[in-house]
């Protein structure tokens, strides 16, 4: 099956270079709706949904394939192959920052630069390493997701049926934001929050920008600093924006930081 269809790939903008945007756990490519358009004048932009999220083909969800990040990494590389992408700028949020790191190692030449927004190579504390969460806390999240299918079912999922707050974006609006199959959401949460890719950071060989939010409880500042220390020659920018989703809460700050890098 075509990766472009499977991952609901959307291509906009034009320019000699391409910028690939990858959304993290909990949402879909709408996550980039206030950031990606700012680059459409200079870049071709490629946005996609991880399998199970947004407008992706849910029939393509194979629990064995997506039992680790490598399934998502393979998808990203396949999208790159099918679109003939070389030397692109990769912008990944949250878990997809690490998916981009892994893809850059597995497919040299695909990405010329990495922008990691709120990256975390490991969410669970381990000895001296501070990930921000204990193992039982991650289990609590997984249990919560497992027992909350009612509030998270396909028909009840947080959905918007028109009347967006920002009518200027209304025409792009699909029938909902952040749709995710509840079962897949739980699997993806498990893969995300139990991942450990600390050893891969040293293998990154392309210029890398790390955007660290203030007061991000999912990927706290020590984690961003850890990534900065372990990715050779990387640049760390502390954003004033608080929370885990600066691409939504402070898009202009994110846009400025990316502009300064590319």
């Amino acid at each position, binding site marked *: 099956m075509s990766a472009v269809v499977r991952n609901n790939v959307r291509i906009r903008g034009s320019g000699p270079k391409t910028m690939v945007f990858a959304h993290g756990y*909990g*949402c879909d490519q709408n996550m980039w709706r206030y950031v990606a358009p700012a680059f459409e004048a200079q870049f071709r932009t490629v946005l996609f949904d991880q399998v199970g999220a947004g407008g992706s083909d849910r029939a393509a969800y194979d629990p064995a394939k997506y039992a680790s990040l490598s399934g998502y990494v393979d998808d990203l590389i396949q999208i790159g192959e099918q679109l003939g992408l070389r030397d692109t700028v990769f912008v990944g949020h*949250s878990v997809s920052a690490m998916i981009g790191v892994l893809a850059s190692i597995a497919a040299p030449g695909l990405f010329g630069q990495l922008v990691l927004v709120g990256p975390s190579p490991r969410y669970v504390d381990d000895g001296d390493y501070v990930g921000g969460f204990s193992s039982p806390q991650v289990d609590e999240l997984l249990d919560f997701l497992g027992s*909350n299918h*009612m509030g998270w079912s396909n028909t009840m999922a947080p959905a918007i049926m028109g009347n967006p707050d920002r009518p200027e974006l209304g025409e792009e609006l699909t029938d909902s*934001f*952040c749709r995710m199959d509840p079962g897949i959401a739980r699997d993806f949460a498990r893969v995300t*929050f139990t991942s450990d890719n600390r050893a891969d950071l040293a293998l990154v060989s392309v210029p890398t920008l790390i955007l660290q939010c203030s007061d991000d409880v999912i990927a706290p500042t020590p984690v961003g600093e850890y990534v900065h220390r372990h990715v050779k020659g990387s640049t760390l920018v502390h954003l004033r924006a608080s*929370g885990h989703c600066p691409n*939504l809460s402070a898009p202009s700050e994110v846009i400025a930081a990316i502009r300064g890098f590319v």
Partner: protein
Amino acid sequence: MTEDYEDLYRNAPFAYVSLDADGRIAMANDTLADWIGCPAHDLRGQRFRDLLTVGTMMHYETSYSPLLAMQGHFDEASLDLRTADGGKFAVFGNARVVRDADGQHLATRLALLKSTGRRLYEREILDARDRSETTERATQATLATERETSELREQFIAVLGHDLRNPLASISSGARLLQRDLRPERRTRLFEAIQGSVVRMSSLIDNVMDFARGRLGAGIPLDLRPDVMLGPILEQVVTELRIGVPDRAIETAFALPEPIRCDPSRIAQLVSNLLGNALTHGAKGEPVRMRAGVDGATLTISVANGGAPIPEPALARLFQPFFRGEVRPSQQGLGLGLHIASEIAKAHAGTLGVTSTPAETRFTFRMPLHLPGS
């Protein structure tokens, strides 16, 4: 009456909480304070996410927060509040972002509805769904077994028709030939051939009957005798089988001086099935070698033949009913012989095993001389 708006806010059956643009609590009502066991004024300045259990908070930060930013509201969010005594308080929450005339984010208002009972109900529904899925899987498994059995049955009937007709046709043509005026030695050979076909049909019918019984749940019935002299019984089986294949060599080596506790006719059937199998599938130019003896407290009977070895994948399935290796219809039995032999071995608390090499294929039956519990 006249409603007191302030009291309505403070003591409403909903918890109300207003957050500033930074997500910190600007105001909360007494209902919320009461639910979580913390004075309302102490809540001011705290982050809303810090009121949540860690699991809920992770979900809130990754899923509900983005929704608020994008669509300005969320509805029916399942959330767990942390209570002062370390417990959880389940709520449903709706939220609305308040903006000024320029679209600047001023505040977020949340209304939370107690849903502890509802949450239990959901849990029960989920548990019921899980149970129903388990039942469904079991039903599917039963259905699959039934389908398999039904396929086996059809196969069985087809094979039965075919395999009983073959010896029957031989008997029929033999009988027609006997009507003619033949030399005595030719008559004897014809008679032996007919006898051979009768033995084969009779053994097929025995197997079919035993298989049907086994499938019906009764297992292979044994008629155990305490002191069976097996040697002569095995000789008799060999003699009967030789009639059908006068040109084949069957070498025997029996050392069975002591009486043995077993079902003699079942052991004869087991051996007959093994010999029949070896004569059918073994290389025609090589003898079939049969050995029987007692080693310590174990009776061992083995039957070996030459010819191409049995492929590895087939070995594991040899003792399943209707297993017939490659399809060579001209020389097939029902595919029940080895299955029945293996069942007879089990009924005697014994085993039937096979080894297959380019040198020989050997089936070995072993049973304890002293049956457990006897």
